[in-house]
């Protein structure tokens, strides 16, 4: 019988607020699509009890055995092209506590910089053995792990000859309805980061947390794949009670 992830007992501590010094503004003109799509009026504060709702519910039975192995979960007649990489890290709250059993969903371009998505018209080849989507639940230490290939850079129409840096999209819920996070992981030393308005939209001093670290020790088997480590910090209980 698969374990059920929720419910947990309600917590007494309030949830820490969204730290707007860490997040991008809704309207960031260098990323042109924000100009007509970002809300312009101040957000209305809502009482904390709503933020701490434990949702949604899901369980280990929802996750397929190959869901976290993007080199196999869409394979038809071989392996996807590209550099094999392990992407792993811990999901933590601001107090450094692991967020266990939480869903991590990822999606990415293939090694040539092409997304499977039907509206991606970039003139680069699709890979018959690669979808580019994966998911897993974190373990008791908050750790997630994916095996995939390194995504390629690709052009976009935001500005003349604009290219997105290599990145992997992440979607997380965390423990609470309000700890939802959608973000992107980048790779260390990518020269395109300096020119990417999406990366640059996060405040200086915060955006650096979006860049993974090379760590060859996370792979295990020598000579098999490169390893990148990316820890993710979500909103959590506002303070650690005494004695914890």
């Amino acid at each position, binding site marked *: 019988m698969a374990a*059920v992830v929720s419910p947990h007992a309600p917590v007494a501590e309030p949830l820490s607020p969204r730290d707007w010094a860490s997040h991008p503004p809704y309207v960031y003109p260098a990323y042109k699509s924000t100009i007509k*799509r970002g*809300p312009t009026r101040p957000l209305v504060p809502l*009482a904390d009890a709503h933020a701490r709702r434990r949702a949604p519910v899901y369980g280990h039975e929802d996750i397929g055995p190959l869901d976290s192995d993007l080199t196999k979960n869409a394979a038809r007649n071989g392996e996807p092209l590209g550099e094999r990489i392990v992407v792993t890290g811990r999901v933590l709250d601001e107090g450094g506590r692991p967020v266990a059993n939480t869903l991590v969903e990822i999606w990415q371009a293939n090694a040539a910089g092409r997304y499977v998505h039907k509206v991606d018209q970039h003139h680069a080849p699709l890979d018959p053995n690669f*979808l580019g989507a994966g998911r897993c639940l974190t373990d008791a230490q908050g750790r997630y792990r994916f095996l995939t290939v390194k995504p390629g850079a690709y052009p976009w129409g935001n500005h003349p000859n604009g290219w997105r840096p290599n990145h992997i999209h992440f979607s997380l819920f965390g423990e609470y309805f309000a700890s939802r996070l959608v973000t992107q992981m980048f790779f260390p030393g990518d020269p395109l980061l300096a020119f990417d308005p999406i990366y640059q939209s996060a405040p200086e001093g915060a955006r650096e947390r979006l860049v993974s670290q090379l760590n060859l020790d996370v792979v295990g088997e020598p000579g098999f794949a490169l390893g990148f480590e990316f820890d993710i910090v979500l909103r959590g209980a506002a303070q650690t009670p005494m004695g914890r």
Partner: protein
Amino acid sequence: MTLKQTPSQTVGPYFAYGLTPEQYGYEYKSLFGPLLAGPEARGEHIRLTGRVFDGDGVPVNDAMIEILQPDADGHFVASSSEARASDFRGFGRCGTGTHASLHFWFDTVKPGAAAPGEAPHIDVIVTMRGMLSHAFTRVYFEDEAEANARDPVLAALPPERRATLVARREQHPGGAAYRFDIRMQGPKETVFFDL
């Protein structure tokens, strides 16, 4: 606080095969979709539908909407096994890119009030290409005027903005439908919450 929050980034234009694959026709199981309530779920079965409009009033074809709500008795689903037993999921996800009219839809039940004094409502997460952080909003129901008038969250809003959160009741072939359009900007900009 020893660690700082990881910054949000946009969901981008290509989330469909990762987050809403079945709706968009990809061969990958969806963990969440537009169906919250199966036939056995108790309560009034409704369809919640709407469109997302940008600052020019143009419907957005690549938004992703997620909703959370209690069941008809105001009870939030607390586990996957409970969801299976009640045929009610409590959480749904739908993109706006698969219908010609660019609407999202959810087949669910009308929620009960989750707490005394609160009007029945559905919590909503809005995100899309061009949003660097998601936004939270809420759906209230037009035919709950009395409860809406007492609801503390609605009451705290400027009266002229309350209507942006109230869904209109309509009929569709399957029964009752509620229409809830989301306006990102402009004079009728939807109320978005910080929670």
